[in-house]
């Protein structure tokens, strides 16, 4: 249609030139005004291209011959010079219109390329923006605009039957009718090596969908679906191929980024695990070394040890065996805590009674220091796992003894709080520097500069795990006047029920 219009306009242009020539001849006497037609021809060439220009040239010659070359109003030419003039005219018209047409074509091409480049640039920019989901939204929107689509979708092949829809905008594009994603059929090349399938008829229920496969190298990873277009030109095909490559590259980039992140996490975890294993290995082997050395000494043939020496070696063996036992217990507790299998078997106990029993049991090993107990008169029973809270308190007391001078007193303070009951182990030692306070409850953390790091570094971590398994919390405070206070709170959401069934009659014996 447009072509016809161009021809008609070209013809009109020629007619206009004829009129102009007639007018000029009326005013002046000029030999040859056929060059006026060149205006029309050139105009047609520049504006509409080669064919309209050719039509204009032919019409121009005919018009000139008919209207202005004697005999007028005929197609005959008497004067041979006129023939030459017409021939020259034709040649000039042909060449110039060719040049002009090519120029125009080049200009159109340049403009088209510029549009394409802009589109590609904008699509590329939208894909490179931060988060993939929003980037894809922008990408889809621009694509829909550029290609006048009803809808747009990107699907990813993930090895399962149905491809995963990353994004779907506008009319439903990822219909199940789409089925499998296209790959590259062997050997056949079409549209720059991409197969682009058209699905769906023209009706509104299943709009035509173009499916552009996305490739990374040879590997198909998914497809870009464009809804609402049936045919595309070669130029558009080329553009879509480039767009598809950009999209595929962006998706691949995202996949690699995630993989790199995972790898980094794994690497760090591996690093931590190695460090822990090294630490545990050292902690387990140190007491074993003492045991081995002592036993070996006692077994040395030919050496006659005094009773005192013998006793000393054996005491070492006994003591180091205890230490090893404690470490193994801590490790098992820690491993249970980390594995999430710590489930308190809670019963109603009197916390003050528990504290007293632990203090009595630990007193001999606390080095003869005074351990005081401060607690309110009537503390109601609280639901706890006795053995676990026993372990928590034991760890805190042993910790306090280990990091304070041998005659420094320790105080255990009980209190009822709004949410439950609280126990604090207060010491008057050097305290914990503020910088390290956040890390004391970490696994294998030891305050190194305190001299002999005798502990396993697990006591506080185990305490924290057990307290938190009860839904409680544990923290560290400064003792006013110097020292550290390790406190933990256990929740008591409901008061203990009065247990009516077990209180039969009130008859006294």
């Amino acid at each position, binding site marked *: 249609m447009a072509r016809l219009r161009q021809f008609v306009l070209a013809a009109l242009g020629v007619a206009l030139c004829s009129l102009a020539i007639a007018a000029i001849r009326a005013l002046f006497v000029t030999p040859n005004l056929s060059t006026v037609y060149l205006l029309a021809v050139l105009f047609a060439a520049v504006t509409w291209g080669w064919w309209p220009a050719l039509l204009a040239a032919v019409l121009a010659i005919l018009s000139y011959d008919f209207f202005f070359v004697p005999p007028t109003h005929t197609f005959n030419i008497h004067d041979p010079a006129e023939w030459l003039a017409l021939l020259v005219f034709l040649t000039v018209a042909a060449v110039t219109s060719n040049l002009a047409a090519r120029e125009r074509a080049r200009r159109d091409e340049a403009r088209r390329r510029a549009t394409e480049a802009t589109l590609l640039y904008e699509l590329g920019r939208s894909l490179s923006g931060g988060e993939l989901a929003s980037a894809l939204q922008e990408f889809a929107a621009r694509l829909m605009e550029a290609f006048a689509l009803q809808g747009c979708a990107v699907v990813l092949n993930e090895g399962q039957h149905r491809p995963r829809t990353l994004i779907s905008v506008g009319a439903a594009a990822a219909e199940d009718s789409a089925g499998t994603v296209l790959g590259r059929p062997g050997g056949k090349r079409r549209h720059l090596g991409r197969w682009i399938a058209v699905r769906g008829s023209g009706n509104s229920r299943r709009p035509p969908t173009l499916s552009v496969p996305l490739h990374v190298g040879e590997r198909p990873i998914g497809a870009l679906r464009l809804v609402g277009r049936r045919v595309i030109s070669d130029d558009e095909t080329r553009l879509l191929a480039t767009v598809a490559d950009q999209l595929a590259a962006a998706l691949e980039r995202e996949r690699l980024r995630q993989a790199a992140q995972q790898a980094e996490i794994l690497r760090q975890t591996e690093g931590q695990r190695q460090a822990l294993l090294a630490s545990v290995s050292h902690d387990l082997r140190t007491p074993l070394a003492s045991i081995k050395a002592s036993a070996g000494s006692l077994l040395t043939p030919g050496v006659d040890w005094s009773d005192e020496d013998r006793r000393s070696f054996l005491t070492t063996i006994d003591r180091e065996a205890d230490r090893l036992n404690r470490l193994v217990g801590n490790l098992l507790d820690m491993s249970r805590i980390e594995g999430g299998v710590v489930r308190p078997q809670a019963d109603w106990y009197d916390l003050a009674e528990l504290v007293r029993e632990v203090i*009595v049991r630990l007193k001999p090993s606390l080095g003869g220091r005074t351990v005081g107990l401060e607690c309110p008169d009537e503390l109601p029973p609280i639901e706890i796992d006795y053995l676990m809270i*026993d372990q928590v308190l034991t760890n805190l007391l042993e910790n306090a003894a280990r990091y304070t001078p041998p005659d420094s007193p320790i105080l255990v303070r009980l209190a009822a709080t709004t949410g439950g009951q609280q126990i604090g182990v207060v010491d008057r030692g050097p305290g914990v520097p503020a910088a390290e306070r956040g890390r004391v409850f970490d696994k294998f953390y030891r305050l190194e500069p305190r001299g002999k790091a005798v502990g396993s570094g697990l006591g506080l971590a185990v305490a924290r795990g057990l307290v938190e398994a009860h839904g409680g919390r544990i923290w560290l405070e400064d003792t006013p006047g110097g020292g550290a206070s390790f406190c933990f709170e256990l929740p008591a959401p409901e008061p*203990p029920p009065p247990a009516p*069934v077990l209180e039969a009659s009130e008859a*006294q014996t």
Partner: protein
Amino acid sequence: MSGARVLVIDDEPEVRRALRMALSGRGYDVQLAANGEEALAEFDRHHPDLVLLDLQLPGLSGLEVCQEIRERSSVPIVILSVQGDEPTKVRALDLGADDYVTKPFGIDELLARMRAALRRGGGARPAGQAVIELGDLRIDLERREVTVRGQTVHLRPKEYEMLRYLAANAGKLVTHRMLLRAVWGAEYEDARPYLHVHVGQLRRKIEPDPSHPIYLLTEPGVGYRFASPDPAARPS
């Protein structure tokens, strides 16, 4: 207890060797078994006076062996358990074991428990005494009267029952379930949550210093023990 026959059942050769040496050094006559089948065969053949049973055995489990032995006789059984294996420990005690020792154990502790168990005789058979006396505490079982330093103590019926049962099994480790069953009946076997509260109340009535009990001892996570009347062989 010289001459008493002890059957040691443990799958670890090192443990068997160490126990044989330690026990025979104290005058015991030691028999060894490495697994359940051997143990039962030895038991039938020699009828030991006491059994030391490791709970972790290959093949026939420690619990099964305990049950088998208990069905055949009321011989005292002391089980050797691993720290942290509370459920199995309690289960064994419910099945009739008399006491337990946790590995790794001090040999003195083991010997003390063995002595106490031998003195009591095994099984859950309460002693047939009319009066139980321990320090300032006096329990008259016939008249159902409890006095501390001569002063009568008023106990609720269930409190008395608890005290009576524990005292009759003095020195023996009584699990929560055994106590609940004995005092409240089989249907309250699992009504543990309030048991400790009741024991606490009982303690407040009979102990000279309830916060440092000397009669009613708690075995955390497992049960209770009434202190043995013979101070020389009190376990712990």
